[in-house]
């Protein structure tokens, strides 16, 4: 049987199409963008991404998001504690498959966000997550174009789709994620209502 293609890619493409065939309600770019943000949230809150996008100083590990063993810390630059940099165990590539499932994965610049720009993803509502990634004060001074570049090409981001033996890759294919990101941007990168006001109340 012929495969009709990856459903996530198709969904991403459909979300990006503004002109739909006659008789089908067309989505406004804004509606499409809000729908696309659902996909973005699924990716950012996958363990491969959110395990290091944390509010505290101890990264998480594995699909279950357990606190990283060995008292591993974010450190002053996000690269681990002085004397125990992430690179002690994490190389610039995953180890060879022959090393088995319990060895540390690797990618260039293995690190957490810096303490100044923690870019917390974990536990946030859709609206708060959206506000966080758009805020240059919290996202490492990135505008939307820089964010798109980051999610499209950063090698540490891409590792989420090639995480080595024994770890689930991000559940949405990377091309569908990037397509959703573009759809979200094309619709003005809107955020679902309610987030910041709610978190302001909580503060």
């Amino acid at each position, binding site marked *: 049987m012929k495969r009709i293609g990856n459903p996530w890619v198709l969904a991403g493409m459909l979300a990006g199409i503004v002109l739909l065939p006659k008789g089908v309600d067309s989505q406004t770019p804004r509606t499409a963008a809000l729908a696309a943000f659902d996909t973005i949230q699924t990716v950012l809150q996958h363990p491969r991404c959110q395990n290091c996008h944390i509010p505290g100083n101890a990264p998480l590990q594995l699909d279950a998001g357990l606190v990283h063993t060995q*008292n591993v*810390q974010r450190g002053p630059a996000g690269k681990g*504690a002085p004397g125990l*940099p992430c690179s*002690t165990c994490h190389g610039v*590539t995953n*180890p060879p498959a022959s*090393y*088995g499932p319990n*060895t540390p994965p690797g990618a260039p610049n293995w690190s957490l966000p810096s303490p100044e720009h923690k870019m917390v993803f974990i536990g946030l509502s859709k609206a708060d997550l959206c506000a966080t990634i758009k805020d240059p004060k919290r996202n490492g001074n990135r505008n939307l174009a820089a964010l798109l570049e980051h999610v499209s090409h950063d090698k540490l981001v891409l590792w989420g789709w090639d995480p080595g033996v024994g770890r689930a890759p991000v559940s949405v294919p990377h091309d569908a994620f990037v397509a959703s990101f573009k759809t979200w941007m094309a619709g003005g990168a809107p955020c679902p209502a309610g987030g910041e006001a709610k978190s302001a109340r909580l503060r």
Partner: protein
Amino acid sequence: MKLSVNGKEHDVSVSDDMPLLWVLRDVLGLTGTKFGCGMAQCGACTVLVDGQPVRSCVRPAAAVEGRAVTTIEGLSLQGDHPVQRAWAEVDVVQCGYCQSGQILAAAALLQAKPKPSDADVDAALSGNLCRCGTYQRIRSAVHRAAELMEG
């Protein structure tokens, strides 16, 4: 594959995925670096690569070609690196199995942070397990080494 270990160049012929630890111990005969777990869980295999700590059991030797590897045998010529002197003074060692890793990890910590607090020692050395439980003496010896390095 060309490796630089303790200032000496070696040309070794090993498979591409052989871990550095295997090359050090089995090919070069440098058995001071120990095998504990083989999966970056214990720290016994810690060496320095360009001065930074590395678990040699999970790093392919091919990944450190052209870089300077230091093992316990090469930390100092006479065993008199301040960390080694402090270790002897405080009499840290019990069975010794974990201690090459502990000493190299401590040297890396003091390089990064010459006056570490207890919390700094805990953060840097928690990945180095000691089944004999010499942790308190390790902590004291790191502080003593910091004093010795200050001169």
